[in-house]
């Protein structure tokens, strides 16, 4: 892919020039959160506290045609970009296409420069830097960013802002490689080679018992997509995010419920991510962002759960 260079002092100018609504991470004490630009921003660090799926797929939305404002999300990290691409498959592929999922959003992703304590992307075989699916990707190097062009829209954006970019020196690319390799090596632990086919629940019974069915894990997951429809007047539907971790999620009239018990729901989540999603959508549904660990009210560490499940 084609690359360019943009210096630190020009990046703000570039973001100023973006049209429509722009969302970008802001650094807080020990986390990053999404803010609407203009604001102080940071392209360093790790994934934001909430996933970017909110921008693409609204938590509560009336399903009718409406005006949409052009939108750009800057600073999406690798795991979250994979999440967005996963959701695109769910909503935009198959016999029916969902017209409300926003695949028109311009994506300017960026490399992680640090890790959150719960990050485990590389244990799943993924990298902490975006490789595909972005319009532009920004990799921090000394004095600025290497800009990788990932689409025609990204190319056009660079052309429109020609004066802000220069060509990349070979040292720049070498530095990017070194930074990327160094960060990947920081994630320590056993590789999680898991296809979800055989889940021995007895290995994780004590962990499952801690679940209080709050559904935080699915809400903060960058790839969880479940929703529920409800009626408005005039045959309009409203859609809410839903969660397979609610006890009544799969209940049918008459009271039958294939996942009444806590352990069945927990294992459904594990299998959905690692077994069912690859079969349904050709992609795993977990990208190692570790938000479900940070968010779990019961204190369940999903990474440790996976490690225990693959233990011989």
């Amino acid at each position, binding site marked *: 892919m084609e690359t360019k260079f943009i210096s630190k002092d020009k990046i703000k100018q570039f973001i100023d020039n973006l049209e429509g609504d722009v969302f970008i991470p802001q650094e807080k004490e020990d986390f990053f959160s999404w803010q609407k630009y203009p604001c102080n921003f940071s392209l360093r660090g790790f994934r934001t506290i909430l996933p970017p799926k909110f921008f693409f797929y609204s938590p509560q939305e009336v399903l009718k045609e409406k005006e949409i404002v052009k939108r750009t999300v800057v600073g999406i990290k690798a795991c979250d970009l994979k999440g967005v691409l996963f959701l695109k498959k769910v909503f935009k592929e198959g*016999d*029916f296409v*969902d017209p409300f999922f926003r695949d028109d959003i311009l994506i300017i992703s960026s490399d992680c420069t640090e890790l959150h304590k719960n990050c485990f992307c590389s244990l799943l075989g993924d990298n902490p830097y975006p490789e595909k699916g972005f319009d532009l990707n920004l990799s921090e190097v000394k004095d600025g960013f290497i800009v990788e062009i990932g689409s025609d829209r990204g190319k056009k954006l660079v052309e429109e802002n020609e004066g802000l970019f220069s060509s990349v020196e070979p040292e720049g690319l070498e530095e990017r490689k070194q930074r990327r390799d160094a960060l990947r090596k920081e994630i320590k632990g056993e590789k999680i080679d898991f296809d979800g086919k055989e889940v021995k629940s007895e290995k994780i019974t004590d962990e499952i018992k801690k679940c209080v069915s709050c559904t935080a894990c699915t809400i903060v997951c960058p790839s969880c997509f*479940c*929703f*529920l429809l409800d*009626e408005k007047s005039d045959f309009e539907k409203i859609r809410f995010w839903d969660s397979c971790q609610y006890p009544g999620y*799969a209940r049918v009239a008459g009271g039958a419920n294939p996942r009444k018990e806590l352990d069945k729901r927990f294992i459904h989540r594990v299998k*959905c991510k690692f077994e069912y999603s690859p079969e349904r959508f050709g992609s795993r549904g977990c990208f190692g962002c570790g938000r479900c660990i940070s968010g779990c009210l019961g204190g369940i560490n999903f990474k440790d759960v996976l490690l225990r499940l693959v233990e011989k």
Partner: protein
Amino acid sequence: MPMVNPYKPVKAKLKKIVDETPNIKTFTLVLEEQMEFKTGQFVQFTVPEVGEAPFTPSSSPYVKDQMEITIMSAGRVTEAIHSLKEGDTVGIRGPLGKGYPLEEFKGKEVLILGGGVGMAPLRSLLLTLIAQKKDFKRILLLYGAKTPQDIIYKGQFADWRKEGVEIHRSVDNGDEDWKEKVGVVTVLLDDVKLGKEVVIICGPPIMMKFGTLSVLEMGYKPENIYLSMEKNMSCGIGKCGHCALGHYFVCKDGPVFKYSEIKDIEGIWD
């Protein structure tokens, strides 16, 4: 280009409502836009401001100007449907899912095993088979209900018999006038000599389970047993996750599955 919104129902007028049993009614709908369906496909039925629920049309797909849906009152949405009046406007989304694979039944003995309101999709299938009856070696219907009162389509069995369908019926609890079999529907399997080619089952979960186990024991092959799986549904188009059955979404990969496709999935009868 106008937006294609798969969540938007087509408006439909309730032309006629027939009481089948104390808790089952058949609704005849005339849709504002015609909707062609294959027998076994389902629709989402919207009651404005109340909700939506999935049902399989019980009418023949050859009848294009109206659609019949037979509905048991079982909870929030179905109770609201039962309180509707002729002339009311509702919404229909569909057709959804895959129909019965009729091609796979051709030239064969087709056994239909139905229980309770599970007869609704089977009626549509039966009417389709009757319309092409020369293509099938033999058509049998074994139908069970709780009591004689709970039998749906009461006046229609005679017509189907005339068309050459072999019909046997049972009720769990008979009364003085009941001259046919008493017992759960699987007892009817003992009364007929079968070539054990294909069997289609639809009914309440417990009946699906014991029906399947019985025909397996008789020697039906898992790949020749066709089951209608009832799972919780919301979108009906493979997006919302509710109807997950292993890696399948019942709404788009079903609702009819061969037993061989799902037999290894945990909890299929729950």
